[in-house]
């Protein structure tokens, strides 16, 4: 029987905490999103006074599990126990009141309020008249900061703080709830080494106070430095839990990528031509630096790396969406200053972006309107007038070739499935006859059938001499489709692997280097 949050709060207040084996555990948790089984009967067991790391590739299910523990998602199945008592969390607030606090990757602070106001929001100390007692609030904050050894002015505005300091505020806020469980989602991704050291100090002192800490990370060395235990997830399934002293780096990587490549990738061996695109020392300030690579006609260059490694940013810069701060882009040996997508397109580039909904589809417009928009830049237009017959026929033909499943060309794109939306976008760019095709997560969130079709199509394009850059988080896709793989980590290129030598383990090593 589930205990309501208020009962739980009463239990907490009375101090009569049952001595359960685990501080927090989840059993047989299942969570499905439309088209994706995010978690398949997973378990997770956190002991009191430990740091428990969660490991896994992108899409392994770590974040989903954490969001369930933090009350953001409600599981379809399974039970969550806090100190042995089953709980049902219905909202993040519910979780907070139960003593579970989460620090998100995207920080959730209000920039135009002070540090203290952010920490005590909704719980502000009040004076006799019911107004907020700012003096008391700043005092409480100072105390909290002393306890955590944080040197910040409670009265400064959050927007003036560095990312690292905002992180500290988030942690202080979580601690201020007197939480028993603290969930940290890649807390070091934006911190410098010194800041990381400080964070670890804080984590260790919290651990000594008996708090359980869930720590999501992609960084192997952090795991060995801070975590007592770790659990590995893969493709929404629970793989295992071990003490971090029992294993080696290679063991963990094997657990993370252990699956066999079972899907078929219709990669064809095609003659590789001349260098079409050459990027030298390309940098975008504070995002990525000194990225250099060549792509040849007929070649598929896979780009691997974790989310946030700068892969997509490089693609955007090459395509002129965010012009580079330094470095050169050469197309067929000619240096080009790429300042806008318009320019990139005029040089034969096409870019299928990562986020179909945000930067790809014109959702409220129809299939025809979506497909024709890029090619209208320089074809099918006479004296400003669109040649309706020509463009319609071209789009219908493209739609048939790509087997877009739509009742007709006038169907709104928002009513199509993800796979068909992706095909419409691919069609949009193929109509422009690109020489260089950049694909960012081309098969994310689409079903297996459509995936295979898109892979076949990409192979075909390479065969016809198109230079393809394919960014992907899906290891089998990268390994199966690429002639060469470029791996990125934290805004740097950490290495290139040829098709013959590339393995999942090697890619993962470079991606966390």
């Amino acid at each position, binding site marked *: 029987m589930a205990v309501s949050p208020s009962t739980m709060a009463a239990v907490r207040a009375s101090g009569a905490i049952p001595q359960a084996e685990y501080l927090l555990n989840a059993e047989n948790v299942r969570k499905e999103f439309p088209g994706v089984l995010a978690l398949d009967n997973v378990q997770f067991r956190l002991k009191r006074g430990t740091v428990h790391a969660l490991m896994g590739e992108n899409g392994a299910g770590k974040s989903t599990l954490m969001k369930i523990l933090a009350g953001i998602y409600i599981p379809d199945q399974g039970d969550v126990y806090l100190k042995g008592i089953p709980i049902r969390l219905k909202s993040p607030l519910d979780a907070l009141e139960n003593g579970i606090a989460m620090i998100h990757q995207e920080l959730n602070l209000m920039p135009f309020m002070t540090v203290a106001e952010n920490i005590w929001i909704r719980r502000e100390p009040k004076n006799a008249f019911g107004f907020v007692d700012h003096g008391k609030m700043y005092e409480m904050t100072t105390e909290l900061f002393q306890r955590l050894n944080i040197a910040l002015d409670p009265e400064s505005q959050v927007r003036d703080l560095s990312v690292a300091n905002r992180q500290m505020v988030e942690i202080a806020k979580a601690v201020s709830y007197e939480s028993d469980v603290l969930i940290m989602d890649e807390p070091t991704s934006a911190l410098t080494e010194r800041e990381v050291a400080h964070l670890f100090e804080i984590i260790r002192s919290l651990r000594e106070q008996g708090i359980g800490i869930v720590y999501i990370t992609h960084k192997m060395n952090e795991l060995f430095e801070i975590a007592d235990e770790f659990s590995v997830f893969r493709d929404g399934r629970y793989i295992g839990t071990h003490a971090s002293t029992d294993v080696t780096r290679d063991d963990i990587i094997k657990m993370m990528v252990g699956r066999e490549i079972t899907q078929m990738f219709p990669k064809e061996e095609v003659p590789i031509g001349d260098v079409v695109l050459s990027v030298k020392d390309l940098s975008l300030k504070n995002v990525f630096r000194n990225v250099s690579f060549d792509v040849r006609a007929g070649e598929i260059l896979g780009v691997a790396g974790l989310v946030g490694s700068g892969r997509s940013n490089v693609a955007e810069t090459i395509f002129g969406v965010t012009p580079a701060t330094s470095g050169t882009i050469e197309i067929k040996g000619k240096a080009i200053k790429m300042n806008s997508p318009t320019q990139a397109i005029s040089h034969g580039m096409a870019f299928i972006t990562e986020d179909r909904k945000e930067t790809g589809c014109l959702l409220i417009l129809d299939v025809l309107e979506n497909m024709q928009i890029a090619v209208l830049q320089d074809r099918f237009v006479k004296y400003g007038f669109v040649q309706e017959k020509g463009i319609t026929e071209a789009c219908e033909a493209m739609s*048939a070739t790509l087997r877009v499943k739509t009742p007709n060309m006038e169907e709104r794109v928002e009513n199509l499935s993800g796979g068909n939306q992706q095909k419409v976008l691919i069609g949009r760019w193929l109509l422009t006859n690109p020489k260089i095709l950049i694909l960012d997560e081309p098969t994310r969130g689409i079903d297996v059938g459509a995936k295979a079709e898109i892979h076949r199509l990409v192979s075909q394009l390479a065969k016809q001499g198109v230079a393809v850059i394919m960014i992907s988080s899906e290891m089998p896709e990268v390994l199966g489709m690429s002639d060469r793989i470029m791996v990125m980590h934290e805004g740097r290129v950490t290495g290139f692997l040829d098709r013959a030598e590339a393995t999942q383990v090697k890619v993962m090593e470079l991606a966390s280097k």
Partner: protein
Amino acid sequence: MTSEQVTAKVTTPALGRRHRRRLPPEVNILLVLVGIALVFEILGWIFAGQSFLMNVQRLRIIILQVSVIGIIAVGVTQVIITGGIDLSSGSVVGMTAMVAASFAQASTWARPVYPALTDLPFFIPIGIGLGIGLLAGIVNGWLIAYTKIPPFIATLGMMVSARGVAKWYTKGSPVSGLTDQFNFIGTSIWPVVVFLVVALIFHVALRYTRYGKFTYAIGANEQAARVSGIDIERHLIKVYAIAGLLAGLAGIVTAARAQTAQAGMGVTYELDAIAAAVIGGTSLTGGIGRITGTVIGAIILGVMISGFTFLRVDAYYQEIIKGVIIVTAVIVDVYRQKKRKV
């Protein structure tokens, strides 16, 4: 892969058929217009003992009144389709009316603004008026495209400043004694002709030109449009420039109809124009809207005002009811958008 190759492969273009199976959205709005007219017709027989519609004089007044708002609304519709808004059109009407009229005065008038520049041929004041409107529109567009301030703010600023120019221009006094040549455009049904020509031009532009396709694309998803190679900044300037130009044209027609210009001309016209567009099915979130809908929307507004006057409804009530109708139109639109999603 070239698209020629792709095309060659396909032998069965049976897939998407070209015909729209849905009724065009204008049909609904047209039905609303017919319904409203019939209601007034019935109420007319009941309360006034006469027909509302069978009165050529009344219908003439309705379409004449609709014309000026309609010309503005054609421009505003395009702005709204891009996801923006133009609050400045009413003030631009006042500004262009004043400036254009000052170059259209007859030498017989006692105190012309420019004594040396009287009896000019009609195309000079009209050209100047259009130029002023265009300039105001370009400034709007430039501010929105390059400083990235919200269209609401940019055009609010223009609304206040353009009205200021209109008042400053003659220190508040009206400009009268206009030449017959200039006034001609406001006589008879010429305002209606101007309106219909403008509506036709931009109906065609939105549906059949690259300009139109890009306008819808920007409103549907600006980021996607940018990645697809559309020069968003340049296009937005074009759209706002057209809206300014049409507001300028409306200012000229207004002055010609009144045969005089006053600084207060066009006050709240921008709101009527926005209302016409919205009633006509233009979505304030962008990407959706048609000129035909806007024309019908403008007529609905005109019919309602005329109908209320005909029924001797107090002017205060008229405004209250007008507000209710605008809000209702948007609620219906929101509901319709929701239903269309599967």
